[in-house]
């Protein structure tokens, strides 16, 4: 937490889940979780596949409604489009329209926001220089992921939700993205990222929340969660087994 906003007592919280449950038929994806993202922090939601990470993100984005409990972003209902102007999200997308150029995708997404980030700045942050005019379909996997990252920043958001942002990326691209995410946090943005890479949580997050079968198992800094275990991975495996 390193910006003025973080210490302002009345600044609305970027996101909050209170006693949220989510049922899909007989499956309980979330079982009464409380989660707060504080201004200026990077929070990692750590868990195995099916732990409920994506469900939590979807609820915060207004893409799904909680079965019970409440979700707010900047104090408002995430289901109202207007409350999404200050947040940006990077979801796992199976396929993005391939016959638009990088700059066209960015231009379109930026138009959704009242005060978008300038194109040149986005291109710079996402490391897309020289690729502006390339068709999306002609990009490599890492480049595609970087375009999605740029799109999530299009509205110059105060709060970023990144759902497994580095899934399937090579080490180099992953580290590049980490660096950019860290820079944004240092600039005062709040970030919620889900991951099942423990190293990612350790490298990026101010705070880690471990989710298992829809419930919060542990919460704290990576060091606290690690405790006596040699690595975060050992601690995690001990916790979930």
């Amino acid at each position, binding site marked *: 937490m390193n910006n003025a906003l973080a210490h302002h007592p009345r600044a609305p919280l970027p996101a909050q889940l209170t006693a949220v449950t989510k049922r*899909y*038929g007989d*499956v309980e*994806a979330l079982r009464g979780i409380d989660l707060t993202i504080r201004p200026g922090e990077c929070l990692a939601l750590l868990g195995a596949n099916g732990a409920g990470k*994506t*469900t939590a993100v*979807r609820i915060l*984005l*207004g*893409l*799904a409604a909680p079965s019970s409990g409440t979700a707010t972003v900047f104090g408002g209902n995430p289901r109202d*489009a*207007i409350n*999404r*102007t200050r*947040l*940006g*999200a990077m*979801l*796992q*997308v*199976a*396929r*993005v*329209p391939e*016959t*638009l150029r990088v700059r*066209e995708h960015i*231009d*379109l*997404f930026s*138009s*959704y*926001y*009242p005060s978008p980030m300038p194109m040149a700045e986005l291109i710079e942050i996402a490391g897309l220089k020289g690729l502006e005019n390339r*068709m999306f379909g002609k990009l490599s996997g890492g480049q595609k992921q970087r375009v*999605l990252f740029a*799109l999530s920043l*299009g*509205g110059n958001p105060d709060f970023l*939700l990144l759902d497994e942002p580095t899934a399937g990326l090579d080490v180099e691209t992953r580290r590049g993205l980490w660096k950019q995410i860290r820079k944004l946090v240092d600039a005062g943005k709040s970030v919620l990222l889900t991951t099942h890479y423990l190293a990612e949580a350790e490298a990026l997050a101010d705070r880690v929340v471990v989710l298992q079968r829809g419930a919060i198992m542990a919460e704290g800094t990576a060091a606290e969660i690690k405790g006596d275990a040699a690595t975060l991975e050992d601690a995690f495996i001990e916790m979930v087994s």
Partner: protein
Amino acid sequence: MIRSYGKEIRYELLKAVRLPAYTIPTLLFPIFFYLFFGIAFGAKQVGGVTMAKYLIATYGAFGVIGASLFGFGVLIAVERGQGWLEAKRTTPMPIAAYFTGKLAMAMLFSATIVLLLFTMGIAFGGVSITFGQAASLFTILVTGSITFCAFGLAVGNWAGPNSAAAICNLLYLPMSFLSGLWVPLAMLPKPVQQIALFLPPYHFSQLALNVIGAGRGAAWGHVGAMAIATVLFLAIAYAGYRRDEGKMYG
């Protein structure tokens, strides 16, 4: 955010133009049909007009329905299935802008098909049509796109991204035939003519045929049928959307 509407339209068109494998068949399919039936048997009289003139209305309807089902309904089902619509819904994008972009594209395709048919009919089918008639026919055909966009959306929301195109084809082709879009209804067996009364493409094409004095039934009846069909399709589409929202992804 008003500019989002313009940009959705613009990029939707760009996307389509850059996909000739989709664009060209959608545009040319009805034209080939028309050339085959409309020009080859063009001099024959049907419903008081020449076949070449009659079939501009019905193949116009056929082309508009295709462009709307596939360019709107199937496309949205696919983008939804791939998570792309969802990615856009995390932004403050007005959802109406998204639909406007797709609708504009379906209507532009529709307009292109109808203009191509006029050109073919006049150039090769000896069709004579007043400007007023042509303008009314054009307006009715392109506006009818709305009903079939709603139809496509209903199919897409229930069938899902993988089967939406197949199911649309399964409905599109038989329904067009049974509604008298390929061969004038009067040339089809009596039972088929009864079935047609329940099919939206029938009412759509009869409304178009009314303009050139070759339709059956009163225009207001067809307009009413189209309006009811549109509301019904939208309701079905919405129910499918709600059902999906309760499902788990990932």
